[in-house]
């Protein structure tokens, strides 16, 4: 994965989202040790303090837990937490953007729903 270094999102947020994806994809099981800040710094070529910030966000959200002197580990309900967070925040924001763009283009609610359905149908046909 490459970071969007000139993108809108701060790097530490991108790090935390990348780690979340790793957990969602099953690359880290619960109670498994996750990458250290130094490993992340090396992988993404960033300052270890930035990597630590990304890890700390997940610790605050109780997706990871700290073991003193050993590092950070994946909480047992990490997957559920990430899923519900993504739904309530990320997806909601994306929907907001879609609705705004639809308003700008004078696309009615009905039309928008049809568009979403069309995409879904396309997926099922594949």
């Amino acid at each position, binding site marked *: 994965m490459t970071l969007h*270094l*000139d*993108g*809108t999102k*701060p*790097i*530490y947020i991108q790090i935390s989202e990348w780690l979340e994806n790793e957990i969602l994809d099953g690359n880290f099981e619960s109670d498994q040790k996750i990458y250290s800040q*130094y490993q992340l*710094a*090396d992988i*993404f*070529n*960033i*300052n*270890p*303090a*930035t990597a630590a*910030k990304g890890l700390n966000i997940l610790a605050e959200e109780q997706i990871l837990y700290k073991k003193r002197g050993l590092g950070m580990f994946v909480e047992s309900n990490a997957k559920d937490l990430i899923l519900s967070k993504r739904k309530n925040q990320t997806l909601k924001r994306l929907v*907001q953007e879609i609705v*705004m763009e639809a308003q700008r283009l004078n696309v009615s609610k009905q039309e928008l729903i049809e568009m979403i359905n069309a995409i879904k149908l396309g997926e099922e046909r594949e």
Partner: protein
Amino acid sequence: MSMIECRGLTKVFGGTKALNNFTCEINENTITGLIGRNGAGKTTLLKIIAGYHQQTSGEIKVFSEEPFNNLTVSANMIFVHDQLNLPTALNLQEILDVMAGFYKNWDRELAHRLFDYFSFHPMQYYNGLSKGMKSTFNMILGLAARTPLTIFDEPTTGMDAAVRKDFYRALLKDYIAYPRTIILSSHHLDEIEDLLEDILVVKQGQELLHMPIAELREYAIGLEGKNALVKEWTKDREIIFSKNGAFDQSYVVVRNDFSESELYQAELAGIEILPVSSSDVCVYLTSKTKGGIDDVFNKG
């Protein structure tokens, strides 16, 4: 713990103040980026930290000692810049051998590996190197010395893009393995910002900003839209940069003190909200006029 403490530091050169009541603290084991326009006082500051110059007034402590003429500081610090006075009678290999005697943490193996990687020849002489190769050799000295305080003043001058990339990577890897205090001055913030923990912006001999680099990314925000609309949304806010575009459009950069709902409302009103990169923020903050070079050409 702070490695460097400056209080009210002033340095006068022939009537102009290169540093003017400069105050800052740099923490131990951080990588700090020193950013500023030409003539802002960056090199003067670094030379005082390194003990090359004595301040006109004010206080400075490096390793809790006054750096000027100080052995502790010079033994624990390396200052890499593009006018290093290396012996012309020695070849590159001999220079590396001599350096090993000066610095107690000198890593012979690292020096050797970098030397080979960048295709230097032991029998070459420093003065015979191109500008970019000189910078590359200086970089090897700076990394292999592995001093608790390592200062790079515009280290990438003349380096090609590939070598610059290698340098940043080497610096980061060695820092991860051997944490130390590193100050890196550069005009290319976009190239170095991911390496940094803190950023120190200098303007006209004074500290303008000193914050974690992550905060700088969210420091400012750009609003673009119809003149009147943008004016309304940016009034009573700290304007950092503004530019009038074509067709009654303007682009204004302000301090990012908007709440999320305010931004949402501004977008609904038809304003485009744009992120401002760290290096743009620095350019805007350190320029003298709000309109930049365009002001020179706007006579009316």
